[in-house]
């Protein structure tokens, strides 16, 4: 917990000069605001632990204000707001699994799987025979996300996308 927000430790470097006080340089991501910051701690300093847990839930529907997810085993449902969803909104497919980070039972972050397979709803017809894919072209996916794809990819095809970088990986395997 830092400034009233649960945080994730991204990096933690222990520094101990031969003659001098030890300290830790810590890179932190605030889970609610998403801000990444670097802070220096005195070694051995303690910080309040955050009551945070990750669960795997499948996406159900959006009621206009909240996005509803369900635990496939217990059928328990959780509603996430726009802030928790953030950019993940462009990868939402019904019944797909998402990682929901709960803080005191409230969803604060919704993370998609690293790879998703989505259908292309719109892209310019590429030039036939151009398989080098230099530069590529924009393609709109079923969820509304726009990614750059090679020129040979056509509307209606299903492609695999890396959600962390938002980049095209390959044609879908199915």
């Amino acid at each position, binding site marked *: 917990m*830092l400034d009233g927000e649960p945080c994730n430790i991204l990096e933690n*470097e*222990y*520094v*101990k*000069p*031969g*003659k*001098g*006080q*030890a*300290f830790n*340089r810590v890179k932190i991501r605030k889970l609610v605001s998403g801000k990444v*910051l*670097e*802070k*220096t*701690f*005195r*070694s051995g*300093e303690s*910080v309040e632990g955050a009551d945070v847990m990750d669960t795997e839930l499948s996406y159900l529907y959006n009621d206009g204000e909240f996005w509803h997810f369900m635990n496939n085993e217990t059928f328990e449902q959780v509603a996430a707001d726009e802030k928790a969803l953030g950019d993940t909104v462009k990868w939402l497919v019904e019944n797909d699994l998402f990682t929901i980070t709960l803080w005191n039972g409230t969803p604060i972050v919704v993370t998609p799987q690293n790879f998703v397979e989505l259908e292309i709803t719109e892209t310019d017809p590429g030039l036939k025979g151009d398989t080098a894919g230099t530069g590529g072209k924009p393609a709109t996916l079923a969820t509304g996300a726009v990614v750059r794809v090679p020129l040979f990819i056509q509307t209606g095809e299903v492609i695999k996308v890396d959600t962390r970088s938002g980049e095209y990986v390959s044609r879908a395997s199915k």
Partner: protein
Amino acid sequence: MKNSRCQIAETPVWQMQITPTNLRLRAQLLARIRAFFTNKNVTEVDVPVLSHNGVTDPYLDNFVTQLTLGQTSTSLYLQTSPEYAMKRMLASGSGCIYYLGKAFRHEGAGRQHNPEFTMLEWYRIGFDDRALMHEIDELLMDVLSVASAEYLSYHAAFLHYVDLDINTASHDELITALAMDFHYDIQQASRDHVLQLLFNIHIEPKIGKERPCFIIDFPASQAALAKISSADPRYAHRFEVYFKGIELANGYWELTDAQEQSRRFAADNVIREAEGAVQVVPDPRLIAALTHGLPECAGVALGVDRLFMLAENLDSIEDTLAFPLPRA
């Protein structure tokens, strides 16, 4: 740097971490160090690793253990360096000596830290800090095959890399130059703590990249066991050696004044009190030796595991050890 860490981390914990090739190279490095001192007629000595007293240094902690025999129990301290024992030898008439063996520090493990490590420490009678640095340079050129070291004063390093004069800069100016966020109240920190942070973060990564760099003339407030300069009492005859981001050695033109040493030990305990650390009884045997008379000498302590990291371009101290802490 070779990134051998990932593959080795996968080996079972009973297996040694160092590669068989590096195990042999490490032995060769130790043999080379011993040959260096044999050629100079410096005698290898052994010191007790378990001793009746610990160190007062505010930021060093001993491992403490108990010797219990029947109803009586005695605290024994694992030594953070062989310094006190070696100075007692010098005062007893040992002549020039070196120690190559284990030292222990009660602190965390990290990329450059293992609580148990190999230290090379040596003392040269009649040398001042300059003469000793010359000898260290010779050793480093021999074992690391590097160019002769460069020298930079603590004061000049701050002027050059932080653009501040440590003798005139205000506490606020020093803190501003840190350009860092703190989870604790840095305004309340001592001037030396702020200087050390500035040094670690803004200077250390920029010095000694091509060849070892001696940082000389530390501020008198960080003299530790070094003489204060008689030419300019703002500085002490203390130096450190940096190479490729690694703090390799720390040395002094040794303080021989028993009263001054006692005052510094007492001052350490004042800092310990303020920091909420335990009080440490200054080693009376060391003070007695200094009172009897320590010959004029210079001494240095050098981390041998780190030296091996540099020699073989290893990324972590764990790769220099058969069984670093997680496997010990």
